[in-house]
């Protein structure tokens, strides 16, 4: 009992490290981690993956490989190897230099600089342990460069400790957002792999599901709850660090990731130093960094929210410039159109895909503007009676509501004229519904890589894609509502649009209304698909355009598009080369194909206006 009480007392007592002790301990552990990593690099085959089979003369630091004196060594020796040897030397010096400040500083600088250089060359195949050792090394360099000024040293140690806390916390919360982790399937799933798994543990976890659940929940609890280390006056430090170290040792044994033990272990002294209350410390500790981090963090959140608000106002102002029509409940639907000069010119109304904005139609508008009135709009951005009102009524994201609004738009802008509907993706589905219900209004239809109501039941890939997409959409919607829209990377989404247009499209994409509306709209669409009673046959010319890439990835898409084309009195399918689902509308090549289809549909509608309805 006495020993147990003593052990518990030790486990739950706050550690008491001094600043220099912490720095030295950190340096020694990270030096071991660096040596470990470099030895593995030197002896392995990452380099050999890229080594040509043919022996050729190569230039190396030791001279040309045809030099008989060096040929055997130099053939397989590169500059990276030389840098790794330097790292080992610097690490040994760092480990040994207890008092030599210049050696400590030089070693840290050499290790940090060489890690930066090697990071670019050995990027593929690197892992979390490499990230950690670089981070620790860089912070130690900052501490030593400031000639151990106590405020800077403490800031660097606090930074290491906070990064460690962030690493466990972020890892835990990211795991919680994954279905496999929530269902306790992740650890067993990893263990079944040969590269990171362990057959014995995989079998054991399968044989004893309770053990599997316990292990899974323990990992999540430990990682997500790690920040409490700072709430218990240092009393939980040893317990939590022992627990996380046990986790790393377990990972080392089962997954072969031994480098994580020393890498993460190198951050532990900093955590132990900073988690102990200042009142228990024998020397003065400067705790300015957590305050600085809090201020920076709050300022960053504030800035993000301000930008989100400003973006929203900008969108509302842009919408207010547009023409408008009244739809149900006193709302206004705003739209843009050009004036082609000829009042009898046909009207082309463009219906966006899910989460898309009218900016996607830029190239199509440019292409058709002289020959038709091209109407574009954002069906999710409806406004109330004035600009200062709230922009939308939440319950009206139903597909039927969107169809009704499109019919209203057709009646206002297209009545008495040749009217072609062009719909992309989900917009293609909406257009088809409207065309089937109001053939009196619509002269022709162009569906661009359209959503097919049966695609989720006929395509495993589409169904899996939808299952993966829903949680992502929900998480995105929540995050964007909190003001994090600025953190979304949109560069690859709008790369085919001109820069000013892409910028506007990005604003729309980052707006919370896009995501909350899109989520509700997609939910409604799924119910609509399931209903399965929509009339798909059309008595008007229909052009269906299929992106070559969509068909390559999922051949069933091509079949479904062909069916849509065939389900009309006169329909045809065009596969557009070198485009994907987005660039078929937002790119020049895709837009040119769509324009051509619009012209073809118009031509056919003019040539045979009655023949179709008479069922020739």
């Amino acid at each position, binding site marked *: 009992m006495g020993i147990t009480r003593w052990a518990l007392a030790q486990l739950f007592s706050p550690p008491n490290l001094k600043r220099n002790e912490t720095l030295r301990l950190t340096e020694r552990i990270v030096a071991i981690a660096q040596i470990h990593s470099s*030895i*593995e*690099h030197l002896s*392995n085959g*990452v380099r050999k*993956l890229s080594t*040509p089979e*043919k022996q050729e003369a190569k230039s190396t630091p030791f001279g040309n490989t045809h030099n008989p004196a060096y040929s055997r060594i130099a053939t397989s020796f590169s500059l990276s190897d030389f840098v790794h040897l330097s790292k080992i030397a610097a690490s040994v010096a760092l480990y040994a230099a207890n008092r030599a400040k210049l050696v400590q500083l030089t070693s840290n600088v050499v290790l940090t600089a060489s*890690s930066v250089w090697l*990071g670019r060359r050995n*990027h*593929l*195949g690197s*892992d*979390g342990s490499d990230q950690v050792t670089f981070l620790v090394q860089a912070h130690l360099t*900052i501490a030593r460069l*400031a000639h151990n*000024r106590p405020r*800077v040293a403490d*800031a*660097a140690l606090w*930074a290491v400790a906070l990064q460690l806390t*962030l*690493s466990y916390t*972020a*890892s835990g*919360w*990211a*795991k919680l*957002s994954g279905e496999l*982790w929530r269902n306790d399937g*992740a650890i067993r*799933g990893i263990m*079944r*792999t*040969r*590269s*990171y798994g362990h*057959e014995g543990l*995989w*079998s054991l976890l399968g044989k004893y599901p309770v053990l599997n659940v316990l292990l899974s929940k323990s990992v999540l609890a430990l990682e997500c709850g790690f920040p409490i280390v700072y709430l218990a006056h240092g009393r939980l430090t040893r317990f939590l660090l022992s627990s996380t170290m046990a986790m790393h040792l377990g990972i*080392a*044994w089962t997954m*072969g990731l*031994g480098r994580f033990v020393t890498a993460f272990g190198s951050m532990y002294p900093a955590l132990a130093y900073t988690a102990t209350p200042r009142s228990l410390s024998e020397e003065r500790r400067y705790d300015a960094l957590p305050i*600085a*981090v809090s*201020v920076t963090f709050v300022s*960053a959140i504030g800035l993000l929210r301000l930008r989100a608000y400003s973006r929203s106002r900008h969108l509302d102002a842009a919408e207010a410039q547009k023409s408008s029509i009244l739809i149900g409940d006193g709302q206004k639907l705003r739209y843009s159109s050009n004036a082609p000069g000829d009042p009898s010119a046909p009207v082309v109304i463009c219906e966006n895909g899910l989460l898309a904005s009218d900016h996607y139609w830029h190239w199509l508008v440019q292409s058709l503007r002289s020959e038709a009135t091209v109407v574009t709009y954002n069906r999710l951005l409806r406004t109330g009676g004035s600009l200062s009102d709230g922009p939308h009524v939440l319950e009206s994201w139903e597909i039927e509501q969107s169809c009704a609004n499109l019919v209203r738009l057709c009646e206002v802008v297209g009545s008495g004229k040749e009217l072609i509907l062009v719909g992309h993706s989900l917009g293609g589905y909406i257009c088809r519904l409207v065309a089937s219900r109001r053939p009196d209004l619509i002269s022709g239809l162009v569906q661009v890589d359209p959503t097919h109501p049966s695609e989720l039941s006929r395509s495993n890939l589409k169904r899996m894609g939808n299952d993966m997409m829903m949680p992502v959409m929900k*998480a*995105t919607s929540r*995050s964007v509502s909190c003001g994090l829209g600025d*953190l*979304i*990377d949109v*560069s690859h989404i709008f790369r085919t649009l001109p820069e000013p247009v892409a910028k506007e499209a990005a604003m729309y994409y980052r707006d919370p209304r896009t995501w909350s509306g899109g989520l509700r709209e997609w939910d409604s669409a799924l119910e609509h698909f399931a209903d399965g009673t929509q009339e798909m046959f059309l008595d008007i010319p229909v052009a269906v355009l299929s992106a070559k*890439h969509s068909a390559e*990835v999922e051949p069933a898409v091509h079949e479904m598009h062909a069916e849509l084309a065939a389900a009309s009195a006169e329909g045809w399918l065009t596969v557009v080369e070198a485009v*994907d*689902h987005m660039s078929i509308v937002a790119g020049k090549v895709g837009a040119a194909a769509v324009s051509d289809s619009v012209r073809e549909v118009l031509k056919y509608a003019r040539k045979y206006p009655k023949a179709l309805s008479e069922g020739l």
Partner: protein
Amino acid sequence: MFSEQERPGRLAEGSALVLLAVWITITAASQHPVGSFDRLRKLDPYSQWIPNWRFFAPNPGIHDVQVAVRMLLTDGSQTKWLSANEIKDRSWTDMFYAPNRRNDKKVSDLMAILVQQFPVESLSVIETQTSYYELRKLALKRVRQSLDEFGSIRGYQFALVKDPGYDDDEDIELVFLSRFEPFRGLVDGD
């Protein structure tokens, strides 16, 4: 507030504080579970300065990535699928020393990069990517190693598959199949 002598030191302290606070904030802002929120990571394409703490999360890898290659011989026959990246069996020494893990990780990284291109790029564009080139080199290495066994080789094809490892209840899944590539001998791939 500070003397002339103190100012440089205080400036260094203040700068370090700001640098470290911003560094941590940017790192925290780059840990969103949804990958599309990684805009700030463009500042650090090699993930050195902005570490990625989302280990095995939110969706851990539960498959081995295998590069398989088969060859068409000059007599018209074809070989069965051969592995181009043997995954070594786990040993207790891997706890302390496992240089081969980086190879496995590299292949996994290459496949992840390549797969990201699939929804966006066509096959002809994918074939120009560095990740495709590196995987093709791996396949070529296997082809060259097979010369002694099979003699003259006309060409080859490689595949990326997801293998469920020790779990025999699940089939392997084909992720990517290359075109038929003619083999030009030992100079091929230089």
